Each structure stands twice: as C-alpha cells, then as structure tokens.
C-alpha cells in the first residue's frame, strides 16, 4: 500500500509544483477546448491561443517566484 501511495504522490508531484501554474494551465486548456467545441472557434486559432497563453502563464509564474525571493 505504501508503494502505491509513494507512486501516486510522485506522479502528482510530476505535474504540480507551483499550484497556480498548473491550475491556470488547466483553465486555459478548458476554456480553449470549450470555445473550439461549443463556440466554433477555429481549432488552429485555439492552438495559437494555447501557445501564447502557456507562455503568459509561465511568465507570470516565474515573475511571481522571482519577486518573492527579492522581498
């Protein structure tokens, strides 16, 4: 049982380090997928928005971390 818990914990940790980074990335994907499937947003535009959105989220996350250490 410990082994399974250990693996589950490691697996979760593989994706989530900065909680808000993971949450914002998931929100971005969900919003874009919903816009493509429900609002007929062109899928290629959705892909481009995904690229730009991921970079914006990454920038926000690293800036917040850098600000935190400089306080």
């Amino acid at each position, binding site marked *: 049982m410990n*082994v399974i818990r*250990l*693996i589950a914990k*490691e*697996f979760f940790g*593989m*994706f*989530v*380090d*900065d909680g808000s*980074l*993971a949450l914002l*990335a*998931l929100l971005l*994907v969900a919003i*874009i*997928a919903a816009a*493509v*499937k429900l609002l007929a947003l062109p*899928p*290629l535009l*959705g*892909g481009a928005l*995904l*690229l730009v959105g*991921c*970079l914006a*989220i*990454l*920038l926000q*996350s*690293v*800036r917040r*971390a*850098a*600000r935190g*250490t*400089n306080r």
Partner: protein
Amino acid sequence: MHSLTPILSTITAAFLASVVEVVEAFTIVLAVGVTRSWRPALTGAALALAVLAALVLAFGPLLALIPITTLQFVVGVLLILFGMRWLRKAILRSVGVIALHDEAAAFSKETAALHQLANDRRADYLAGLASFKAVLLEGVEVVFIVIAVGAAHGQTLYASLGALAAFVLVVLIGLAVHRPLARVPENALKFVVGLMLTSFGIFWTGEGIGADWPGADLALLAIFAIVALASFAMVRGLRSAYPASAGGLAR
C-alpha cells in the same frame, strides 16, 4: 522529413529527459553500493525495475483502447503541465532564484546517512530500500515520459529506445568514472527537456482539439523555437529586473 521530425524529436526528448532521471537514481544506487555493499544496492534497483515493468505491462495495453484524438489531448495536457513545471524550475535556476541541483551533494548526503547506519542491524535492508525508492521514483517519471512522448503518435518504441540509450550511457559512464555524475549539466538538460515537453504538449493538445498545424509535424519545430525564444527572453528579463537573485547559471 515529415516522418523523420517526430521520430527524431521523440527519441531526443525521451533520451534527454531520461538522462536527468537516470543520473538522479544512479547517484543514490552508487552511494548505497559504495558505502554499504553492492548486494542491497543492486537488489533494491532490480526490484524497483520489476515494479516499473509490471506497471508498464498493466497500464500500457489500456492505451490502445483510447481513441487517438482523446489520447493526444490528455497526453498533451499532461505534457504541458509536466514540461512547464520543468521549464519554470530551469528558468528560476538559471537566474539564481532557486539553487542548482547538486549530484555531488546528493551523493555526500546519501553516503553520510548510510555511514550513520553502518552498525545498524537493519542497515542492509535500509540501504536496499533507499536504492529501491530512488529507482522506483525516478523510473516512474521515465515511464511517463516514454508513454507520453511515444503514445500520441504511436512511437512508444522510439521513445523506449531513447530512454534505454540514456540508461545504458549513464550506467557505462558511471561505472567507468565510478563516482557521482556531478559533471552532467543538469539544469541545461532540464531547460532543453522542459522546452521539448512543453512544445510536444502544445502541439498534441492542439491536435486533440482538431487543429491542423501548418506544415504538419514541422510545426513542432516552430512551436519549439517560439517557446525557446520566449523562455530565454524571460531569463534575460528576470536577470535585469531582479539582479539581486541573479548569480546562478544554467550549467
């Protein structure tokens, strides 16, 4: 060219990501072997590899049951999370916000802990457990990377070859120099792997929602270039905006 691009990028991503994980696991196994004895070190490592093989055999065939676009979407999203986590850490290490990972320090810490246990009757068991845990935990990441970068384009075999090459290379170098692989430029590797996994993730998530990327598989290279340029710009921007934290370099 169109079919070679994903094969080469799959092998390279699996190889580079696996090198990082294998080095981390190998450092602990080496510390156990050198400090205690090779029997618990190799027993623990072998048991962990058996558990990993069982995991692959148990979950691998389930992937074939999932429709390819669903698989691309799910794997793509997981790769975005996984890749951006690595990329974030690599950027912050490059600008000195967080410390570089030090394999020599990890080796020293592990050997010191094992020396303290030298007279403990359970020392062999604990040494084997340390080796088992290291190989299992780092191995789970390797298994995920192989499945993730391989499954979405039906290239699990190529991804496995990349991971296997990393394993063989690290073990051969490790046995030859017989000390922790402290010279492996881990943060630079993590930077490149983070860029590749994030690019794979965006590419496959896009395909999963129905995007026909211009240039088909070659779009992967363009996405990689954009993510790389943006990441290097972030490093430069952070270094000038927060000079107090700067000082670390991507080794």
